[in-house]
């Protein structure tokens, strides 16, 4: 049975996104918010709003008891956690269920499984997802090193078992380099961690970050909605995403999509999820699975016509998916720019009053943002203030539309990363789709 009232346990653009989906399904909304967000757009638009704490996220958006109390007081049926905050907190999901509300997301067990890197990788491997090939245990002899490397395939990376931070880490590009690298790594590991044990993994020099969007209902039906290429990252933060990936063809998409769906079915996972891979030379390697909605979900919505938040809510309410993989059509190309309230050169956060705000419009342009003229961006939270999404029939159309829309976007009073995006979308490598996960860091270094 469909929910009558959903509590949105988040803030910013994603809280607004969830509110909009609820409104369009005839579901009433409860916004819970900190005192810093009294004037937030989603708070103004929600049917009911409850202040749950002071600005500090720990005392408000991460305050499980306050959120559950607000749900009780307002008589909500279900809680949507958005992304970040409590969205991947298995304990919260469990508390939500124990209090008789529906958690709009997967089971606490699946959140827990994917929340731990080691458990996640083991589960992924068992479920048939490709992982980075590596030695089972430590590599204790030259012979073992050579046979492991031959099995894995060069280049390989030798890493300290006890390590981290690059210490005791060596690359070997071929058998000639291997023995020396192995010895060096052991010596460094010994010196740095007092433990010489090393293991071996396939080395990826120029991978792309490609992730598959999955939807699964409570009755075993699983579909994938294609991939997103999120290789353009700075300090592990995605900056600009696109779908489909310029690196994949339809065949590769279908293959990795099927692998992902089979794994999800095997895991018995439900609701929306994203499997993140590194991709190099035609091969995929599992990194992690996000058991929640992603920031960049709108580009998938653009190319599939499927409203992901609506689907999350429908699935949580017990509805079957209602369509099969072959009914999903991929149409055109989409891109998303994350706009942050930051200096576009130094990336220093720039909260404050938005003196003027004007969002771009017209064909194929979508803006997800809680900004408005006169709004004060609070200094307490993430600096992402808007997402600009464009959709075109081809990648080239999408790029030209993105340039056009970036040119129309006005956010005055605070510094934003709009100028960075305006420059980035003219770069030749970007235009050619020729980038890996390291590319943007170098580009930023060259351009700021």
């Amino acid at each position, binding site marked *: 049975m469909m929910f009558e009232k959903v509590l949105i346990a988040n803030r910013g653009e994603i809280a607004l996104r969830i509110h909009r989906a609820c409104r369009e399904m005839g579901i009433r909304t409860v916004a*819970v918010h*900190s*005192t810093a967000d009294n*004037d937030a*757009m989603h*708070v*103004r*638009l*929600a*049917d*009911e*709003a*409850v*202040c*749950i*704490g*002071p600005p500090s996220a720990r005392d*408000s958006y991460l305050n499980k*008891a*306050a959120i*559950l*109390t*607000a749900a*009780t*007081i*307002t*008589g909500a049926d279900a809680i949507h956690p958005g992304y970040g905050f409590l969205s991947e907190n298995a304990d919260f999901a469990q508390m939500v269920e124990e*209090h*008789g*509300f529906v958690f709009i997301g997967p089971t606490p067990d699946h959140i827990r499984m994917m929340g731990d890197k080691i458990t996640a990788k083991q589960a992924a491997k068992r479920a048939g997802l490709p992982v980075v090939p590596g030695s089972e245990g430590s590599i204790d002899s030259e012979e073992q090193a050579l046979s492991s490397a031959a099995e894995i395939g060069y280049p390989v990376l030798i890493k300290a078992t006890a390590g981290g931070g690059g210490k005791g880490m060596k690359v070997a590009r071929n058998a000639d380099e291997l023995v020396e690298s192995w010895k060096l790594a052991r010596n460094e590991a010994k010196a740095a961690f007092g433990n010489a044990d090393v293991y071996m993994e396939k080395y990826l020099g120029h991978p792309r970050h490609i992730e598959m969007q999955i939807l699964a209902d409570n009755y075993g039906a699983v579909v994938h909605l294609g991939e997103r290429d999120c290789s353009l990252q700075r300090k592990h933060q995605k900056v600009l995403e696109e779908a489909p990936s310029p690196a994949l063809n339809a065949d590769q998409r279908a293959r990795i999509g099927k692998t992902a769906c089979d794994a999800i079915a095997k895991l018995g996972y439900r609701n929306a999820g994203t499997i993140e891979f590194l991709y190099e030379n035609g091969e995929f390697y599992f990194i992690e699975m996000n058991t929640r909605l992603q920031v960049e979900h709108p580009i998938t919505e653009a190319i599939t016509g499927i409203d992901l938040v609506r689907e999350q809510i429908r699935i949580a309410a017990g509805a079957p998916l209602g369509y099969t993989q072959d009914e999903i059509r991929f149409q055109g190309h989409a891109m998303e720019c994350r706009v942050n309230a930051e200096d576009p050169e130094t990336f220093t956060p720039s909260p404050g009053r938005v*003196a003027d705000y004007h969002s771009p419009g017209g064909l194929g342009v979508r803006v997800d943002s809680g900004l*408005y*003229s*006169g*709004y004060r961006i609070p200094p307490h939270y993430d600096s992402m203030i808007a997402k600009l999404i464009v959709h075109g029939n081809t990648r080239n159309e999408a790029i030209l539309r993105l340039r056009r829309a970036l040119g129309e976007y006005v956010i005055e009073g605070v510094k934003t990363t709009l100028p960075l995006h305006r420059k980035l979308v003219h770069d030749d490598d970007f235009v050619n789709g020729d980038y890996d996960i390291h590319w943007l860091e170098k580009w930023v270094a060259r351009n700021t």
Partner: protein
Amino acid sequence: MGNKTPIDSELVRTLAGLLDETNLTEIEYGVGDVKIRVARTAAPVTVHHGPAPALAAHAVSATAVAAPGDADHPGAVTSPMVGVAYLAPEPGSAKFCNPGDMVAEGQTIMLIEAMKTFNPIRAPRGGKLSRILVTDGQPVEFGEPLMIIE
């Protein structure tokens, strides 16, 4: 959760509507167990860029029924959490305190229930309790003024 505390949003809306219509600043209303007070002082409208993307009026918060001005009162005691306010230790017993009483610093002046836990609210300072701003069983937000001690 078996015993949810459903609040009658429609009633609040009706009262809010009446408030507008009659140009009053406060209405208190009690029928049986239910007591509701709605109040509104001049809203702090941002005049220059003001109206902002929402019809503020349409989102009458179910719990925000105290007059906004009270929160700024120097003697206001505000709620440290979201929950349900109780003015007496148990149903039917006497209230912790009443308007006009002198209260001592640290004295329990009400309870707020959150997650089935009753949290005592203590007077942050001694003085005369001039007003109680919430009714027994009323849901309160974080930061909502509960009482005024002068």
